[in-house]
């Protein structure tokens, strides 16, 4: 147990001690080696790197150096990432065997290990994190502490204003003040639908009930999305604190966080955070001598995407099959165990403490008219800088893809970007300058979604893309309602047929009719949005569908069944590499002369394309 005074002392002393983390001119002889321990870098051996650093430091008996695990820095494409503070030198793609060199050169001799520095988009070598184009257009609010603090150390969280917002709320604000502040900030649900957070809080506060609950939805399931995971891994206490503030505001003393079991690191760190907060008396009864009591529990999801739907999530917490409930009643009135329940997603909570501390006015000054603050995106697909980015609302997609993301690799062309995952739609070249906010994205047929942002180059077939997403929703449908259970299967079958060259006249109309009615008649958000990728790709790439159906041709060359490989006589030098590597022997030709492919025999494996040194083999 720690008294309020003790916590304030920790904040002061620790903050001084950790000033070098955020201040390059900090007056200290100490150095902190920060090693990313997010899931991405962890899977590329960052724990081994940390271990090596510590071992070497001990062996060499070096003083004033500390090695710290942190959450995600964001630039996952360049992981494992190591940053040395206070000078803020950024080492990319570090291997465990590089530790010795970093210690000897950098720590002991003050020399920078040039070969481990990161290259920017223009190929210039960058020493500091802030100098990277990747970071320049970002604004970190939700991710503020990610990559700065050790997520498993509550003192470090406290040092950077941790539990200060809770303190402010408990001693200086009424529950209504808190709700007003959140309302005025303009914060909207970051889970995807964008419902005004303040409104949700106020509904739950107004609902009558002897018991209320605060729930955090951490069942992040969109393919390619890892925003919430990174927040939980990098700054779990900020979610604990925000849930407590929410509990105070709506009158709840109990919270649940529903995390997918596939996030073991997040689960572990969140549990540590809960334990530490309990240990410090921050979670528990009569916190800091006030009337307010709050405790928190983790519930693990068992791998069903539909449990990200709030009512299915509640069913799952209650121990039943994860299936959505009819709305209304909304969870604000009848949620967990039938009691008024506030459900927000991780990223939404991650904004709360900052809003409380810096004020609604500050927060609402960021972003656009209707969408305030920032949004975290997991940038993936055919883009150079794959990773986690946080941008102010209103930034254009072009800025995210080409500036922050560093553009499309391998000299290919941008074709489309998908936001909103399997519930979203694609955004084409012509809409790249649309400012990112809830309304604009909806207007162009997509949605904000939870933050997955997949970039596709011109090698991607859009029919195949729709098929991929439908394969996902088909697989993840809970099976409760007919339109989603059978409808997604039928959509998938039609798409499969088209990509296999068996598309029929009228298939597009069938897809449209089916999509329309699945959306109208499904029980929950999963079914209601499942046809979006189909509708959106038909809207923007109808010609690709027609090409598949009528001409049995896939322009992007992704649909193998439609591939017709041929050798360009202009480019072929007759080297014979393709012929030697063809597994079915369907390529013939004399050495030095143009070769040819027997398309009847060809199994479209594509080996010849990858083997040809002259790029002479292509899809007709």
């Amino acid at each position: 147990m720690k008294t309020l005074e003790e916590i304030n002392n920790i904040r002061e002393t620790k903050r001084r001690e950790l000033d070098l983390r955020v201040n390059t001119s900090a007056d200290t002889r100490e150095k902190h080696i920060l090693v990313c321990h997010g899931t991405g870098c962890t899977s590329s051996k960052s724990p081994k790197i940390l271990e090596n650093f510590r071992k070497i430091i001990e062996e060499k008996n070096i003083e004033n150096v500390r090695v710290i695990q942190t959450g995600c820095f964001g630039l996952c494409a360049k992981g494992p990432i190591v940053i040395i503070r206070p000078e803020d030198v950024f080492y990319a793609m570090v291997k465990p065997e590089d530790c010795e060199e970093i210690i000897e050169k950098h720590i002991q001799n003050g020399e920078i290990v040039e070969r481990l520095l990161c290259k920017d988009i223009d190929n210039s070598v960058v020493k500091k994190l802030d100098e990277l184009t990747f970071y320049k257009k970002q604004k970190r609010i939700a991710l503020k502490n990610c990559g700065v603090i050790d997520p498993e150390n509550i003192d470090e969280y406290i040092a950077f204003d941790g539990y200060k917002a809770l303190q402010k709320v408990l001693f200086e604000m009424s529950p209504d003040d808190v709700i007003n502040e959140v309302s005025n900030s303009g914060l909207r649900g970051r889970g995807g639908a964008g419902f005004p957070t303040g409104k949700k809080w106020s509904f739950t506060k107004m609902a009558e009930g002897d018991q209320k609950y605060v729930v955090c939805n951490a069942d992040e399931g969109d393919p390619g999305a890892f925003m919430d995971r990174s927040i939980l891994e990098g700054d779990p206490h900020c979610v604990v604190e925000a849930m407590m503030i929410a509990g105070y505001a709506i009158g709840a003393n109990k919270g649940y966080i529903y995390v997918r079991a596939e996030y073991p690191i997040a689960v572990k760190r969140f549990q540590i955070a809960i334990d530490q907060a309990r240990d410090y008396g921050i979670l528990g009864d009569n916190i800091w001598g006030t009337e307010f009591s709050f405790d928190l529990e983790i519930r693990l999801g068992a791998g069903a995407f539909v449990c990200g739907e709030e009512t299915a999530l509640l069913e799952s917490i209650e121990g039943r099959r994860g299936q959505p409930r009819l709305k209304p009643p909304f969870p604000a009135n009848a949620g967990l165990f039938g009691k008024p329940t506030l459900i927000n997603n991780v990223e939404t909570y991650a904004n709360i403490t900052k809003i409380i501390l810096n004020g609604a006015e500050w927060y609402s000054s960021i972003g656009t008219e209707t969408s305030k603050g920032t949004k975290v995106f997991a940038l993936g697909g055919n883009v150079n800088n794959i990773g986690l980015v946080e941008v102010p609302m209103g930034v254009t997609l072009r800025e995210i893809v080409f500036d922050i993301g560093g553009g499309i690799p391998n000299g290919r062309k941008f074709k489309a970007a998908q936001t909103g995952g399997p519930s979203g739609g694609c955004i084409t070249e012509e809409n790249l300058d649309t400012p990112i906010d809830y309304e604009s994205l909806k207007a162009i047929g997509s949605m904000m979604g939870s933050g997955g942002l997949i970039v596709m180059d011109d090698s991607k077939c859009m029919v195949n893309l729709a098929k991929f997403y439908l394969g996902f929703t088909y697989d993840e449908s809970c099976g409760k309602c007919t339109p989603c259970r059978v409808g997604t299967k039928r959509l998938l079958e039609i798409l499969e047929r088209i990509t296999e060259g068996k598309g029929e006249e009228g298939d597009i109309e069938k897809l449209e009719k089916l999509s329309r009615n699945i959306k109208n008649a499904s029980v929950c958000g999963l079914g209601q949005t499942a046809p979006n990728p189909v509708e959106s790709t038909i809207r923007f790439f109808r010609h690709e569908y027609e090409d598949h159906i009528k001409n049995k041709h896939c322009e992007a060359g992704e649909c193998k069944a439609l591939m017709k490989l041929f050798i360009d006589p202009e480019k072929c030098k007759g080297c014979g590499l393709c012929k030697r590597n063809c597994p079915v022997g369907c390529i013939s030709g004399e050495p030095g002369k143009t070769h040819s492919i027997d398309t009847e025999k060809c199994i479209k494996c594509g080996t010849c394309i990858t083997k040809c040194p002259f790029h002479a083999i292509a899809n007709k």
Partner: protein
Amino acid sequence: MIHLKINDRDVEIEEGSTILEAARKINIDIPTLCFLKDINEVGDCRMCVVEVEGRRGMTPACITKAQEGMIVKTATPAILEAREVVLDLILSNHDRKCLTCIRNGSCELQKLAQEFNKDEIEFDGERIEKTIDDLSPSIVRDNNKCILCRRCVAACKKVQGIGAIDCANRGFNSSVSTYKELSLKDVNCTFCGQCIEACPVGALKEKDSTKEVWRALRDENKYVVVQTAPAVRVALGEEFGMEIGSNVAGKMVTALRLLGFDKVFDTNTGADFTIIEEGTEFINRLTTGGTLPMITSCSPGWVRYLELNYPELIPNLSTCKSPHQMFGAIIKSYYAEKMGIDPAKIYMVSVMPCIAKKFERTRDDMQGVEGLDDVDAVITTRELARMIKQAHIEFTGLEDSGFDDPMGEATGAAAIFGTTGGVMEAALRTVAEKVTGRTFDNLNYEDVRGEKGIKSATINLDGKEVKVVVASGLKNAETVLEEIKSGKADYQFVEIMACPGGCVMGGGQPIRTSKERATIDIRGKRAGALYTIDEKSTIRKSHENPILKKIYEEYLGEAGGHKAHELLHTSYVARDKYNLE
């Protein structure tokens, strides 16, 4: 009262009503499939979607509560298209062999297909072949026909508190399954058949026994005797389009003769035997310090439930066989002897409102005469109707006729066996007079009548109080048993029927649609007809049945005596809920 507008028409309806109920009130019907009032109110199938002004998307009428000022549209082109697509999708994943389906003509899905003028399946596609479970003696489960409405799941779990079936897997691979996909015979299924009554299609049906009965009827060496349970006569007419609650005993007997049965007897006589034996057993337990409360044993679904879930209460179960088993034993012993027929040649067919009777017939210790089953075949009310239709007998035009002598005359007490509380009432009529030694004029025990799931009463027998309780539906049974186990209740006599409402609502009775179940008091009408039979009977107490008196005198000796025990009583076994071997 709530005021709303449906298709521009004003509707006034009680608060708490659904849009569906409000619409039906002004004769606007909305198609439903998964909806089963009070049982399955989930809004899953999406057939009943409507538009409510101000709400995104469409909403299910069956479970959305009507609200003041609501503006509802039930048949816009968009709604009709959505319903048609939903129906198409269900049909696309349904085994559409309608001609050879038992529910051909009574299938709710088939009716919808007709109403929507389906002449093709627009979104046809893959269907996963499923194995049919026909291993149990009572129920056949064919998941190829299942449309995942889950009415059966709700009936099993919510009404009966069993949960033998539930939804397994997810999405397109969802299926209604048992634990580890075992056969129903190897899980905690009680064979009550409420799932069959709930099923809108042919995914669940009784194990057909008509073929073996036809075979017996064709066999010249067999003396084929049929008996019919009390609840059958008040429901059979429904299969021929007659009013619910019509007593068709006379036509039924005529039809059975036309089908070729050698003798047509009444299970009610068996019920009178049950009262004599059970009444005697109760009085013995009461007076000699036997295990109390005594619980009735005429409902085989209930008996199996107890064996599966409360084996420790087996001593409380009356050792009496159920009426048709008793009657079968009497026919193969007393009657065979008296008529000079080789009992081995007698083929005893029971027409029952119940599918658990099919299982009961096969139980151990159901052979009153050494080596011979008391009953050789059990057919349900539905199966009898099918046999009559197969023989092209114009049922509604038949003349009435009476059951065969010498077993034909039964009491009013026996008739009410077919409804919840009936066995208790019949027993009390006898017990009261036996215990007090005087004659009672008022024979109606109103406290144990009616639709309530649990009904208790204290009966004063000249100073001696007897506490009784009646429960129907296994969920209610569970409540009563828990009360007994925890010592919260001190009943002496308990009647339990597996099916909610008793045998009139048995798993072998005519299947009514979801709409009929929501709008008609089916139980009340069928039970009402039984009470009318009782009222009109000249003899209304089992112990006054002259045939029984005669048989006890001539053959059985004392009630509860050695011979009676041999023929009319049975034993029970504790059963494992799941047979994994």
